[in-house]
């Protein structure tokens, strides 16, 4: 901000105002007084003159001309006024005998006769009138004096006084102005200097020699204040730089913390970075073992750190004296800035140069994770200002350690889960083997005997063997189904997909497998059931689990055969758009509406008829799961008394080149 209007002008204005007004008043007053006095004197003189001439006239009545000679050639007039108001005598002979009321107002004329003598101030007309009664006569001597000359003199006098005073005032002003400038200029310089400093230009300077006296003192104070300000700012800047550097190190470290989960990698890098970044002698992280109530060295910098880690350095939390243990107990940071003076400092033979030590507890929501210990060879190294940064660092390391530990736990749990899962799979696999093997021995041996391989067999024996065989087969089927259902429910059913499966071939194979079942059924009926095939020729090759496809189709076919006692069974296979649609239609009794959903539940059969309970009750749920695993659907349509049709679809999955 520049000095806009110098205060000089204001001061001068005030000065003039304060000086002029009283001065003016005084001048006017004096002038008035003088005028007044002069007027008084003149009036007195006029009266005296009038009395003088009146007396003269009394003694020498005709001597009027003589004693009024003095008025010849002047503006002044003398006359004797008779009681009748006429001029008895007059310096202007022409007026003798005329009436005075032509020249004077009536009151004036009257006043001539009011006293013995007196005066009349007629200064408006430039007249001073003195009158005196002529003793012994009834007339009045009147002298009319010319006031104009006196007035003029007075006026010129007052004008001259005024002028002189003005000149004096002017000179005084100029002198004062100069004097003020002498003060104002240096002040203005200082003002500009202060302004520059205020605007941030701390390098501005002034020449101290330009100033004197009190202003020199002011200049001196200003310059030393500026110097102090400069120092303060520089100091602050360097402190901020230091702090920024610390923060950069800290944030670098914490970035590392959040990106590495493996403690064995993280902690050694962390302590190294901390040591370097903060220029310390030694940095170490202890982890707290809650069970053993011990602090164990986890990572330390340098050779000393490695050495102590290999020694598995640890100590109980109750250890004394020990800065680290104390910090662990109190859960509060502690700083020793001069180890020589401290009672709690425990010196370490591996670290002989330590002179200052600071330990910070690593806490995660009130739980002690460990302690961060910093050592320096410089006494007084750890100041309050850095405490916050180190505390935050300790906190973050605590979190990182906790995270790493949790991660390890999670890994462990995941591993266990995997193991359990593996055990489940192995169980299912081995169960399957364990159950099937003995049963297959039973079946095989029974078969062999029934075939006559071990010798002739009677009809009766054959019947018994066949019963045994069919029971065993039934049991085997049950075992297979139960294992399938278990796998499905455990989510462990996996399809063995082959590409380029020829559905026509598969269908044929299944029909061949179902043939004997059909024969057997027909054997029990009066009228054999017709088996109709409505299969599209040349169904395109597709990807699917061949075995499972057969399983499903066989399941549906054998169901149809089992539950139909008249009419026909129709197997159809068609290609429709991007999927195959298969249907097994029978003319059996049908399935009641309420059962149509329930038959897909494990162990539910459509009928309680004992003949039909040869089934396992698992075929349909398994078939549906198998179809759905392929990406298809299996459903039923049925009408009581008319028959049942089971449909299922399979997506067309050609080999992708």
């Amino acid at each position, binding site marked *: 901000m520049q000095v806009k209007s110098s205060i000089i002008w204001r001061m001068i204005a005030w000065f003039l105002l304060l000086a002029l007004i009283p001065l003016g008043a005084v001048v006017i007053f004096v002038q008035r007084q003088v005028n007044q006095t002069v007027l008084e004197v003149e009036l007195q003189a006029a009266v005296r003159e009038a009395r003088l001439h009146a007396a003269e006239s009394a003694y020498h009545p005709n001597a009027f001309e003589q004693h009024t000679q003095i008025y010849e050639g002047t503006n002044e007039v003398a006359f004797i006024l008779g009681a009748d108001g006429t001029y008895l005598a007059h310096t202007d002979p022409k007026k003798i005998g005329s009436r005075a009321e032509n020249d004077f107002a009536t009151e004036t004329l009257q006043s001539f006769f009011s006293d013995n003598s007196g005066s009349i101030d007629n200064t408006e007309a430039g007249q001073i009138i003195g009158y005196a009664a002529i003793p012994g006569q009834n007339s009045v001597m009147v002298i009319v004096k010319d006031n104009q000359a006196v007035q003029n003199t007075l006026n010129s006098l007052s004008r001259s006084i005024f002028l002189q005073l003005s000149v004096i005032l002017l000179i005084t002003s100029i002198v004062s102005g100069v004097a003020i400038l002498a003060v104002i200029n240096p002040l203005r310089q200082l003002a500009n200097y202060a302004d520059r400093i205020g605007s941030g230009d701390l390098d501005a300077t002034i020449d101290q020699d330009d100033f004197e006296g009190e202003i020199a003192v002011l200049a001196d104070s200003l310059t030393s204040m500026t110097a102090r300000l400069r120092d303060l700012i520089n100091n602050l800047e360097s402190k901020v730089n230091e702090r920024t550097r610390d923060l950069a190190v800290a944030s670098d470290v914490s970035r590392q913390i959040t990106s590495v989960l493996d403690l064995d990698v993280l902690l050694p890098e962390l302590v190294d970075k901390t040591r370097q970044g903060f220029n310390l002698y030694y940095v170490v992280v202890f982890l707290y073992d809650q069970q053993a109530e011990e602090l164990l060295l986890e990572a330390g910098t340098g050779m000393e750190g490695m050495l102590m880690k290999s020694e598995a350095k640890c100590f109980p939390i109750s250890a004394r004296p020990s800065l680290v243990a104390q910090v662990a107990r109190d859960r509060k940071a502690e700083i020793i800035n001069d180890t020589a003076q401290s009672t709690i400092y425990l010196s370490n033979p591996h670290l002989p140069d330590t002179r200052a030590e600071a330990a910070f507890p690593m806490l995660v929501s009130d739980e002690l994770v460990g302690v961060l210990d910093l050592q320096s060879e410089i006494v007084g190294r750890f100041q309050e200002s850095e405490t916050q940064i180190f505390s935050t660092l300790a906190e973050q390391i605590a979190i990182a350690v906790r995270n790493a530990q949790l991660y390890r736990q999670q890994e462990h749990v995941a591993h266990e889960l995997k193991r359990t899962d593996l055990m489940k799979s192995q169980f299912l696999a081995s169960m399957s083997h364990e159950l099937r093997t003995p049963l297959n*021995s039973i079946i*095989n041996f029974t*078969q*062999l005997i029934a*075939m006559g*391989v071990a010798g002739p067999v009677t009809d009766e024996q054959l019947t018994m063997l066949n019963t045994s065989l069919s029971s065993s087969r039934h049991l085997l089927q049950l075992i297979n189904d139960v294992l399938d259902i278990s796998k499905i429910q455990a989510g462990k059913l996996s399809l*063995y997909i082959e590409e380029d499966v020829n559905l026509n071939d598969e269908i044929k194979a299944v029909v061949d497998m179902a043939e004997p079942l059909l024969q057997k059924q027909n054997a029990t009926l009066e009228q054999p059931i017709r088996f109709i095939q409505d299969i599209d020729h040349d169904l395109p090759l597709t990807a699917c689990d061949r*075995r499972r496809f057969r399983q499903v189709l066989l399941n549906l076919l054998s169901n149809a055969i089992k539950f139909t006692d008249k009419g026909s069974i129709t197997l159809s296979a068609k290609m429709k758009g991007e999927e195959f649609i298969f249907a097994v239609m029978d003319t059996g009794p049908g399935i009641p509406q309420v059962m149509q959903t329930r038959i897909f539940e494990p162990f539910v059969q459509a009928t309680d008829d004992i003949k039909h309970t040869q089934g396992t009750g698992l075929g349909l749920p398994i078939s549906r799961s198998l179809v759905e695993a392929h990406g298809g659907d299996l459903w039923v349509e049925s009408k009581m008394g008319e028959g049942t049709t089971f449909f299922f679809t399979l997506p067309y999955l050609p080999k992708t080149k």
Partner: protein
Amino acid sequence: MNSQEPILVYVEDDENSIFVMKMVVERVMGLPTLYVLQSRADFVQQVKELGVVPDVFLLDIQMKPYDGVKLLSMLRGDPQFNKSKVIALTASVTNEEVSLLKSGGFDGAIAKPLNIDVFPDLIARIMKGERVWYVA
């Protein structure tokens, strides 16, 4: 090679299985004999001592100390038996198993326990040169 009377070699350590196989081969299929060999280091030697070149080797996969896979590699090392078909007999028929067997060089696989009904037919097909993967 006589497709009517194929020479079969069976390598298995379970007695019941051996009994059944013998019954099937000799009584049901009516073949003169079923050669049963041991899973031993001298396996190839055993085969040579038979004095005939077998048509089909039926090797159980889960034997110890040498399972079918190992015996297969032993056999393949000897050019004398190049023409013989080597079939794996396996109880576990997971997808991985089957592809391993296929890539391992077996000419086919038959699921255990034996399905007596289809076995003769499978042998016939194998003798015709078909690669049979009866793992249903």
